[in-house]
């Protein structure tokens, strides 16, 4: 049946758009929190991390989906881990080659993409039971939903914590108290616990808009 579906049928597009809101991996499915919080002190590492996860998740989904009928059920976790680890090694080597400073900043968190629950979760829940193209879209969608949260948190933390965005100054120098102005950077935003509070607030906003997500 689905063989005759056009590549971008409504059903397939829904795979892309759902994770942005109704089934967002971070705020609804609670997957992949660790790396989401630790790298978001600035915008640049957040963007690099988001792109890396998009690449790994989409490719891993496709590979596992192609192999889904040949993997014995009992050892599937190991097979999945090997596929993910191989992809992550690739991403790590590419980052080291082209954006060395960001790769230093991300340190162990690139390696931790292996244990990022989004990837295992999507492989288990989707790629093992669906065709490669759908799995690719699902991987892109979920990784993008993850990336959006990362970028929102990174945006606010860098703007309020350092007064810059992507390394460029946003708040004019003359505003700072040191230069006779009225403004001071909020040092709290750079500290790691504020990432948790920021995600908490994103969840609050999202669930106020979308009341069917409320837990009781």
């Amino acid at each position, binding site marked *: 049946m689905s063989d005759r579906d056009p590549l971008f049928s409504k059903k397939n597009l829904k795979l892309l758009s759902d994770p942005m809101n109704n089934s967002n991996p971070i705020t609804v499915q609670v997957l992949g929190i660790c790396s989401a919080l630790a790298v978001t002190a600035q915008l640049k590492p957040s963007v690099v991390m988001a792109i890396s996860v998009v690449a790994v998740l989409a490719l891993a989904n496709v590979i596992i989906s192609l192999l889904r009928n040949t993997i014995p059920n009992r050892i599937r976790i190991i097979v999945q881990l090997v596929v993910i680890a191989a992809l992550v090694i690739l991403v790590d080597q590419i980052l080291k080659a082209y954006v060395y400073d960001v790769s230093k900043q991300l340190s*162990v968190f690139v390696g931790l993409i292996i244990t990022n629950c989004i990837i295992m979760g999507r492989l288990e829940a989707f790629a093992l039971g669906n065709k490669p193209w759908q799995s690719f879209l699902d991987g892109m969608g979920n990784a993008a939903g993850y990336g959006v949260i990362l970028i929102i948190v990174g945006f606010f933390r860098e703007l309020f914590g350092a007064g810059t965005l992507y390394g460029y100054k946003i708040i004019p120098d003359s505003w700072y108290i040191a230069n006779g102005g009225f403004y001071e950077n909020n040092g709290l935003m750079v500290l790691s616990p504020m990432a948790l509070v920021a995600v*908490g607030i994103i969840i609050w906003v999202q669930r106020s808009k979308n009341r069917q997500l409320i837990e009781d």
Partner: protein
Amino acid sequence: MENLINIFIKSIFIENMVFAYFFGMCSYLAVSKKVSTSAGLGIAVIFVLGITVPVNYLLEKYVLNEGALVWLSESFDNVDLSFLRFIMFIAIIASMVQLVEMVVEKFAPVLYNQLGIFLPLIAVNCAILGGSLFLQQKAFINVGEATVYGLGSGIGWFLAIVGIAAIREKIEYSNVPAPLRGLGITFIVTGLMGLAFMGFMGIKL
């Protein structure tokens, strides 16, 4: 000896896995509804970290680092296998978790039933892999230090998950705004606990 105690205290409080690095957040959020299950998972994490960190330390020192294979033959002194780190570490961790699962099933069936699916999931708990990946930055001088670091990190994770589980049991009775219930308030409470743990940061050991 003093050095070991310093590493131990530091890994529990100052560099707490959950509050300083956010490692193992997924299971931390998913399993922290009841104190008893979260304590069981915490103990399993202490155990697995205590085994895998020293094993991975030895693996890194004698196989993966540049020139680490010299003990096999002099001609290997420029072999650098460090790009294989991720895949080797995760293989060790997955097999150790499998081993722990079998041991627990045999000798503590009650705990095994309580932990259920979460025991195999420790393999993909970032706290475990994170502990091993930090070895490279910490540059421990011997395997004793690595073991103490692994155990200390596990105990720090245990403290964090039992703490949040106790708080969540109490929050059940509070009137939280509806959109914040469940996940939202847990995030914010964890943030506040993290701020409290930052108080340890100034301590020099």
